[in-house]
């Protein structure tokens, strides 16, 4: 059963509804990643006994990222002479759009979403892996060895961690019996999947941190080794796009994690008076906080440690778990 978006109930006209949905999704994508970025500034600072931004926007530097955005727009847009201009300019868009596309299927309430695809989680996984093509394009077209190394590392990392990510999601799909994200959330009404699938939640969390190339898995942008990886040659608005893609990625992956394991928009027990989208937002921010917390706590792994951890640790573990889960599913 495919649920209907609230927008379609309000606005029966297809094109008008489409326009409204686009505005909502893009608006969300332009606002919430900035909030997460600001949270990262502040949380990271306080975890290092600092204050973080305090000046922009008077109150605790809330407008810091707006100011950063204005600054990025003013910067000169440099394209290296040896760079492949077309690919170089396209790359930020290719890195950014998959996350917007993923947002389209993310449910924020029983009817609050742009569209409920019956292949929802499949779509999410497919889209999440397109982003790395943008990074590869950026690294290749920059005509810079650091960019290329960074891009190749990003690609290798994605291949390594996509497997545990997909397998962990497959465990959820096996329990829920549906790939629709709304269906998966509704299947958790009795029990959030984080309880029966706790190991898969941990695997999914680790794999998404790796997939987002966030610390401690940030070798593709390891600044002490390869400057800023694939983004080394980027300036101004294009660089800002990559940053937005990174924070957008955190929001989207947190959203997917919340949907798959933490009951998505389902309220906490006894708090059903609070609107469902607020719960989804709360879960997204809690998971984003955790991702930032990891960054403040752990040092960067080495490239070979990262690959080893994925292939020797996570992949066999998730495969074994899936095997046991399917046996259990057939038996009971």
């Amino acid at each position, binding site marked *: 059963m495919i649920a209907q978006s609230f927008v379609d109930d309000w606005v029966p006209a297809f094109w008008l509804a489409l326009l409204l949905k686009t505005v909502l999704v893009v608006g969300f994508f332009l606002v919430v990643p900035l909030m997460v970025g600001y949270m990262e500034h502040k*949380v990271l*600072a*306080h*975890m*290092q*006994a*600092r*204050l973080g931004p*305090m000046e922009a926007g008077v109150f605790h530097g809330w407008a810091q990222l707006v100011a950063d955005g204005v600054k990025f727009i003013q910067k000169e847009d440099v394209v290296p002479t040896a760079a492949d201009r077309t690919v170089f300019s396209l790359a930020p868009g290719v890195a950014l759009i998959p996350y917007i596309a993923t947002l389209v299927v993310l449910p924020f309430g029983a009817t609050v979403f742009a569209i409920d695809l019956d292949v929802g989680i499949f779509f999410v996984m497919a889209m999440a892996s397109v982003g790395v093509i943008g990074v590869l394009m950026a690294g290749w077209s920059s005509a810079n060895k650091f960019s290329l190394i960074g891009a190749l590392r990003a690609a290798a990392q994605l291949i390594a961690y996509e497997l545990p990510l997909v397998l962990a999601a497959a465990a959820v799909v096996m329990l829920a019996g549906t790939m629709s994200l709304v269906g998966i959330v509704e299947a958790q009404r009795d029990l959030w999947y984080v309880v029966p699938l706790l190991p898969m939640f941990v695997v999914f969390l680790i794999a998404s941190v790796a997939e987002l190339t966030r610390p401690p898995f940030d070798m593709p942008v390891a600044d002490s080794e390869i400057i800023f990886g694939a983004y080394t040659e980027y300036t101004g608005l294009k660089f800002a796009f990559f940053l937005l893609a990174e924070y957008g990625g955190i929001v989207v992956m947190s959203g997917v994690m919340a949907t798959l394991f933490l009951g998505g928009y389902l309220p906490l027990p006894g708090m059903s008076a609070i609107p469902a989208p607020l719960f989804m937002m709360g879960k997204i921010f809690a998971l984003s906080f955790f991702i930032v*917390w*990891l960054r*403040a*706590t*752990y040092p960067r792994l080495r490239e070979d440690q990262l690959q080893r951890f994925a292939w020797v640790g996570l992949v066999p573990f998730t495969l074994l778990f899936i095997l046991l889960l399917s046996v259990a599913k057939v038996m009971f």
Partner: protein
Amino acid sequence: MTEAQFTRGIGLGLLKGLGVTLKTMLRPAVTVQYPHVKPDLPARTRGVIALKQENCTVCYKCARECPDWCIYIDAHKESHEPAGGGRARSAKILDRFAIDFALCMYCGICVEVCPFDALFWSPEFEYAEYDIDEMTHEMDRLESWTYSVLPPPPLEDGAEVPEEAAS
């Protein structure tokens, strides 16, 4: 560390690390919001050198000891007859005393060497200028720094009492 110790400790260590950062986050930050809140500097801070003109006897010791030669002193001699008659007495009058803080390396030798306590350290530090010439502080300005000189901190327990205080 053996392999076994490493694997046993790894999970706990990761959690401990998270605990450390969380605890730090919940503690108040150590940052002082400088332009809004002035730092509470200790008495011995080497901010700027202040000159108490009355105490200066124009002995030139500071200027000569200065490793950078950043102290400028001009003076002349004045003699005056005492009212009750007798030999004319002469005194050195300070015309100019300037420190070029663009050259000064804040070693404090001048303060140490001054035999009559005419030079002091003041914790004042906000005297950046757009023009390097402005970094030469003439004696009026040096005198004005004396108002921000802090009293010396109390001696630690068991410290040797300085000669001046003992006598």
